[in-house]
């Protein structure tokens, strides 16, 4: 087993174990903090796939942005409402429905996995992906890139407008 394999299994076990905690934990704060390890493990898998830019973006956006937002949301709403937010127990009907849906999803995933013609590269062809990503974003995918940036700008202005102190 090479170092890459060891790293892959480490990250895979980390993702699965922490994702299990996210889903099953009764304490919603544990779920939120377990997401940290899930996101980190996914970033690790991206590194092993030679997607360096994607890995670091994963850390910046998911750990630095979304996770902090989730934690703040849980932390601030938990005590204010006076009700302890906990993941409730499920009824028999819910469990059966979930089980059926999960089996269907699993069959679908396995079918996709076996049917798809995967393009595999024998060795890493690029030292870094960032130059190609930058060039593509500003040439072929310029419109999508610009729409996303305008959307984010609107979201920022909207947030500032909502948060602004009412003068009257």
């Amino acid at each position, binding site marked *: 087993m090479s*170092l890459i394999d060891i790293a892959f299994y480490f990250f895979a076990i980390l993702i699965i174990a922490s994702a299990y905690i996210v889903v099953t934990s009764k304490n919603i*704060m*544990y779920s939120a*903090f377990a997401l*940290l390890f899930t996101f980190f493990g996914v970033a690790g898998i991206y590194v092993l796939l030679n997607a*360096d*830019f994607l890995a*670091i973006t994963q*850390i*910046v956006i998911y*750990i*630095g942005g979304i*996770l*902090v937002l989730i*934690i*703040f949301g849980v*932390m601030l709403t938990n005590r204010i409402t006076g009700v302890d937010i906990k993941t409730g127990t499920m009824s028999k009907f819910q469990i059966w429905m979930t089980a059926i849906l999960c089996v269907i999803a699993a069959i679908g995933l396995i079918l996709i996995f076996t049917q798809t013609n995967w393009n595999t590269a024998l060795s890493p062809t690029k*030292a*870094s992906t*960032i130059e190609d990503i930058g060039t593509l974003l500003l040439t072929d995918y310029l419109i999508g890139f610009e729409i996303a940036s305008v959307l984010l700008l609107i979201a920022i202005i909207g947030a500032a407008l909502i948060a602004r102190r009412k003068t009257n």
Partner: protein
Amino acid sequence: MEHNFIYNLINSDIVAIIAIILLPLIFVLIYALIAILGELKIASFVQERLGPMRTGPWGIIQPVAEVVKLIQKEDITPAAADKKLFNLAPYIMFVGAFAAFAVIPFGPAFVPADINLGLFYLFAVGAFAIIGIVMGGWASNNKYSLLGAMRSAAQIISYEIPAGVALLAIASLAGSLNLNEIIESQSGWFWNWYLFGGDGPIWKIFVIPFTLILFIIFLVSTLAETNRTPFDIPEGESEIVAGYHTEYSGIKFAMFFFAEYANMFVVSALITILFLGGWNSPFGDFMSGPIWGAFWFILKAFFFVFVQIWLRWTLPRLRVDQLMYMGWKVLVPFSFVCFFAIAFWAMVK
């Protein structure tokens, strides 16, 4: 692997990787002792007293005594605290601080990991500090800890924006996110440093004011990101006891403390890399080379650690609203202006 002498020294890959990981760790341990001594001695110099004098000659063994004291102290977990998260938080903090050392180029011959996205990576691992602080503050089940954690998270997120814009401006000047390439593009005499506009014709005097302002913006934002005075609002002892580490004691408090000192070095190293030419000698080819490179890098970084300690004992603490005013209404607009000017210069150069 040309930027790493250990690979040439050791044949086995696994042993080489372990050595590469251990070297910065040993460096951080030694550096933390020096920084603690510096903190004690500079504080006493500023306050016109002698400081610790009894442990060893002029008290230079005092930091060792401090560390031994912290390690052997009783490790208390409050009864109402969330034990799992309370115990995990110091480790997350330390991982975040130490992860940054993976890309810091200590010299032309030693970069732990010479990745192309070094600058972006350094910016990213800062996220772990926020999570660690919020985790510790929430798990302590103490209102002061929670207030401190929330203040800290708000402060770090606010000041990441001007710092990030400053990083972008320097990246556009250097045309790279690789820390070693950014340093190499500043080689030559000290006027080639990005503090003085970088390498270029005489017309670069028009861009020098912008890089100087950007340098000040970056210095202030990094001070705020490490929660040091005048931005130590998250641990303001007159308001919220000690902020997010109020309930921590013994070895876990030491880990928070250690992470803070490691972060101080990381931001000082970042300032050195971006604005002061990293491991380049200020005098062109004079006194340059792998070992001199490490010497210059550590000297420059230690100077900024000294500046941080000096400012801590000189300036009073800001108020929360002053902090937010400064971050959003002063630093962010000025950093945008500097970014546009520097990006324009990078285009026409």
